[in-house]
């Protein structure tokens, strides 16, 4: 098993910088997800690790070994492609055995390993079939089996679930998680689907324009986004951002937003004290807003514009002083469009961002 280190890796295609000086360490046995919108460089980063792209600058180490100039075959990696890339002229057995045959494993060992991998992916029955006779989900399993049969130190996956239908995707997601627990290869997984990223990753590296914006556990990435981009990319619906101003009154600190004075989260008081009078952005997750139907002094008055039932919840679009907030409410909450509501924000769950840079302010303990 192996740790992957990227050191100042840079990759350009002509004038386009696909990957901008990425430095990242992926721990041995970790499941790391590269998440980002299309064109953010996540797939290129993965292909650099695989050796399918030659980096312009920087170094890549796998298990402490510098593989920057090694071909893919000598990096100890295996890869699952978005298109599955199952060889159409070979049956399932030969597909899975392909890598072992190239590496000249003895036939008995090949048979044993292919059997094992096929069992693990539950395709033991399909070994004699040709890819044309398989469904999308089955092909996907063949592609994964073909990769893990090599017992790679590093398993790379490029959007492996994006070509499956929704139900199958949900199922395979759980399968992949189980698989990782069993084989424990260091895994790098590329996706643009934030739900996939949060559910699979030990850590999620959110990328934007060739850079890693934030690399953290799924919980942290969700609750403590590093900047406005991460907050608005992760979460469905994404984080709300509310313009406000820092005000000091009666020795306490407030953020005045939408005509209401909100007490800032305690841990931010220290940082905000230096910013009295400055504009500030409040990042608020839709589920951290309570909907009240009676006026409250600590709540933002607003008007419901749209009500969308989404099964276990209702998604409200509320107009607050020119700003639009997305709020989730319990499914049985009786609200209708046009109604006046008061929104109470849980002060402990507010993220405070700098409106200029879009970056989150790091909290400081009171009095520090």
């Amino acid at each position, binding site marked *: 098993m192996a740790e992957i280190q990227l050191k100042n890796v840079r990759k350009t295609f002509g004038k386009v910088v696909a990957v901008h000086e990425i430095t990242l360490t992926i721990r041995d046995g970790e499941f790391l997800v590269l998440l980002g919108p299309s064109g953010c460089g996540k797939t290129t980063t993965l292909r650099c690790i*695989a*050796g*399918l792209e030659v980096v312009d600058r920087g170094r890549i180490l796998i298990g402490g070994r510098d593989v920057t100039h090694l*071909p*893919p*075959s000598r990096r100890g*990696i*295996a*890869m699952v*492609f*978005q*298109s599955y*890339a199952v*060889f*159409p*002229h070979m049956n399932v057995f030969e597909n899975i055995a*392909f*890598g072992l045959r*190239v*590496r000249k494993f003895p036939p008995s060992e090949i048979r044993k390993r292919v059997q094992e991998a096929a069992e693990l992916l539950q395709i033991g029955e399909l070994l004699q079939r040709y890819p044309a006779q398989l469904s999308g989900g089955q092909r996907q399993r063949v592609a994964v089996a*073909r990769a893990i049969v*090599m017992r790679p130190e590093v398993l*790379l996956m490029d959007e492996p679930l994006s070509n499956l239908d929704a139900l199958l995707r949900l199922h395979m997601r759980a399968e992949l998680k189980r698989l990782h627990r069993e084989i424990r290869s260091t895994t790098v997984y590329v996706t643009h689907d934030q739900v996939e990223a949060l559910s699979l990753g030990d850590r999620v590296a959110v990328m934007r324009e060739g850079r890693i914006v934030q690399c953290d556990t799924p919980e942290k990435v969700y609750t403590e986004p590093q900047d406005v981009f991460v907050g608005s990319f992760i979460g469905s619906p994404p984080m709300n951002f509310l313009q406000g101003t820092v005000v000091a009154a009666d020795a306490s600190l407030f953020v005045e937003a939408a005509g209401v004075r909100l007490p800032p989260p305690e841990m931010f008081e220290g940082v905000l004290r230096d910013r009295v009078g400055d504009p500030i952005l409040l990042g608020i997750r839709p589920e951290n807003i309570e909907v009240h139907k009676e006026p409250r002094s600590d709540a933002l008055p607003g008007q419901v514009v749209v009500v969308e039932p989404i099964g276990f919840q209702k998604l409200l679009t509320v107009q607050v002083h020119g700003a639009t907030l997305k709020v989730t409410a319990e499914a049985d909450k009786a609200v209708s469009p046009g109604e006046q509501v008061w929104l109470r924000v849980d002060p402990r769950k507010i993220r405070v961002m700098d409106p200029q840079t879009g970056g989150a302010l790091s909290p400081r303990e009171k009095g520090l």
Partner: protein
Amino acid sequence: MTRKALRPFVLYLLMAVIGAWVLAPLVLITLATFTPQLELYRWPKAFLPSRFSGETLAFFLTTEGVLRATFMSLLVGILTIGLAMAIGAPAGYATARFSFRGKDAFRLAILLTRMFPVAILAIPLAVSFIKVGLYDTPLGVAIAHTALALPIVILITTSVFLGVPKDLEEAAITLGCTRLQAFLKIVLPLALPGLAAAAMFTFVLSWNEVFAATILTVRNRTLPALVVYLLGLSPLNFRFAGGFFMVVPALVVMFMIRRYLTHLWGITIR
């Protein structure tokens, strides 16, 4: 009838005319080939022969030089396939897979080579071939035919290699193959039918080519060169039999590879 309703009618009429323009000579030649010699000269001549006769074809095939010329044509065709595929397939692979400086210029240049008529090229070519000792040899004719076939071979093989997803090759590479191994184990087997089509096309081109073959040979004539030479001296039925014998391989091959020809430009024409 309104104009709109008229349109498909006109379209089909045009198609019928074009079809007839191509098919009528083929049908007439075929009929004449299998018509007994006497019937061929009778006037008025019946459209269908009274009986099927292989005499004329047999006469053609036993004519002095025809078998030898057929053998020469086969030899030249095979040599042309070898040369054209050896040069054209890698070129097609390169245009399909790699982006390189001047790629568009290269593609244009491929087509530009067809701008010069063989008539202009053949004479200097003959002079050069005499100098290097390639004149009147199968290899010499094959080289000329290779030059004629290359643009089309490159176009076909490019589309063939484009049809093999790059992912498959990369998957093979991540599974331990070198580039060459990935090509041999994955790309080649998948491209084989298409490459075979390109090879057959090359063969037909060589089999039918008259001009270069006539100028570049004296004694070692290929079949078309021989037929052209004999044409003026021979009776009507001989001409028909010769025409039929020459056109059949082309028809058969075209029928077999038509799928690839309609994919030529990366789009399907049906």
